[in-house]
């Protein structure tokens, strides 16, 4: 391994037909970092994350996950790498035919190196960790509220004690209180489990409270990369609009002054 970077993307290009989504993106994520990936809708944030886990292949460039190049990786190695990643999909992507308990237990059962007697305890602990009581365990995803779906999905993403966590808009669709609680949960978990995370978000509060650094995707490139508080100094119009706009001022203003 060249460095302690969990993810390294070098000169990544993505094209869908004639539509160029990413142009020469170079980005690395260090161990323990919580990187906020920010950009307008349709700027290819989710695609970039899918390329990081090897769900999609970039048109050009190379991606390394845990130091392994994803373009010439064997299926078995990739599966092992993915066991070390947890993904929270935007809509939760809970298995709709399973109860919450079965959803969280599923990765643990599939991992096959955990005694079945432990799984029950672990599932209830995971649910407690994300703030869900044991009474929720028997519900089907369709019976849950939006916030509960997110939390159950986070519990499932955390099931295999991932070293790397991908969160796709974790607070979208949550009320401010629920979003704040969710961020607190993530902060506590990060302190405890020391995972690395890539968070796709539009939520300025989340960027300020949770992310240790931000990468801003605009005009098909990473236009800014650095700590959340440094962003206001960046001259790019998108960054200016985002962080010096009315809402940006409200969230980050207090920090700057």
């Amino acid at each position: 391994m060249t460095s302690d970077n969990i993810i390294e993307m070098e000169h990544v290009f993505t094209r869908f037909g004639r539509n160029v989504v990413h142009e020469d993106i170079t980005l690395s994520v260090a161990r323990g970092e919580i990187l906020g990936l920010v950009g307008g809708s349709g700027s290819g944030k989710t695609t970039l994350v899918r390329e990081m886990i090897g769900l999609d292949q970039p048109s050009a460039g190379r991606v390394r996950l845990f130091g392994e190049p994803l373009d010439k990786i064997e299926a078995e190695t990739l599966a092992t790498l993915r066991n070390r990643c947890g993904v929270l999909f935007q809509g939760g992507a809970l298995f709709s035919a399973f109860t919450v308990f079965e959803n969280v237990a599923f990765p643990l059962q599939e991992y096959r190196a955990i005694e079945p007697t432990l799984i029950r305890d672990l599932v209830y602990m995971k649910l407690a960790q994300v703030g869900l009581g044991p009474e929720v365990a028997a519900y089907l995803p369709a019976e849950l509220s939006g916030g509960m779906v997110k939390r159950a999905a986070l519990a499932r993403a955390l099931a295999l004690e991932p070293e790397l966590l991908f969160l796709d808009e974790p607070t979208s669709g949550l009320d401010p209180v629920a979003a704040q609680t969710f961020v607190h949960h993530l902060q506590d978990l990060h302190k405890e489990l020391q995972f690395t995370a890539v968070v796709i978000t539009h939520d300025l509060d989340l960027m300020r409270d949770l992310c240790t650094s931000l990468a801003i995707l605009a005009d098909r490139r990473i236009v800014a990369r650095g700590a959340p508080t440094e962003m206001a100094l960046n001259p790019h119009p998108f960054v200016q609009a985002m962080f010096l706009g009315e809402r940006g001022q409200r969230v980050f203003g207090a920090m700057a002054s």
Partner: protein
Amino acid sequence: MATAGHVEPAGYHTRRDERGRTVVVLTGQWTLRGIDGNADALASALREHARDNDKVVWDCREVRGLDNVGALVLWRLQGFAQGHAIEVRPEHAALCERWARREPPPEGGRSPGVRPLAVLSSLGQGLRSHALEFTTLIGCVVVDGGRLLRRPDQIPWKDISASIYEAGVRALGITALVGALVGIVMSYLSSLELRNFGAPSYIVNVLGLSIMRELGPLLAAILVAGRSGSAMAAELGVMRLTEELDALSAMGISRIVRLVLPNIVALAVALPLLVVWTDAIALFGGMVAAHITLGIDIPEFVHAIPSAVPVVDFVLGIVKGAVFGVVIALIACHFGLRIKPNTRSLGVETTNAVVTGISAVIFVDAVFAIGFRGIGLP
């Protein structure tokens, strides 16, 4: 933290401290990957030491990572949880704290087992709800259909036309293939028998009557029930999953008018046409086969059809097609609207739609056969 690639297995060793107590020093990664299936072995080895917990010190300062799996293995040892001398790294304190004060998870509810009476009663309830919902659906279709007839500007022509294309035009290929093959098979089989009787020209009567009255409509209907029945049910089901049905209702648009009626009208129109098409192709297949086996000329065969098959049989086949179409669409929509927002229900109800659709087609065909036994048969 451990480096990415390398995993150090969980382990421990013991020593005596200056006060004569046993110190159990945990080493390695007490994590999911560090323990890797050895939880039971580690636990039983540690349990030996945990027995006399007054004299044991648990030293966790040398572990290179502790996660919930590791913590759970340790906390399942009675002595560990109650032993007062535990030394942990500061970053693991919160995790240990949480496991120390966790509440035991509730007992899982046991499934009550199979009780015959309960099975019967749920079966009865299922049938009752099906009957109720199906009747309601028919009622809604009649009422909304009647309203549309008075307000023809609201008829969803586009949906109907799209549905006809999907269920009718795109089924031309498969009905032609199956029709031709069945025609050939019928022709070959009956030609053997007819030659024995010395009446080869009766092949026209045998093929004409059986295909136009029975086989054509039935084949077309079964193929359409499989193709369109599943498609219609699944479409409605996915619309339930994605809340599109609710979106329609919220706009004040009737799902019966926009989703169910177009399917019914489309199949009522398309299936009779498919019946004619299947009849023609099946007769053509039979004709070619008859030419090969019995040497009957094709023009001769074509000329003989009108006198061999009464018009009423042909018409009856077409009417049957229309009725089958309505039945298939109603059943598909009935099961489609019953789909609950989860993937398993989607699969189950789509299968039900096809199986029930085909069974209903054959049942209705039997009713026709009995009801019209005096009509059209020579």
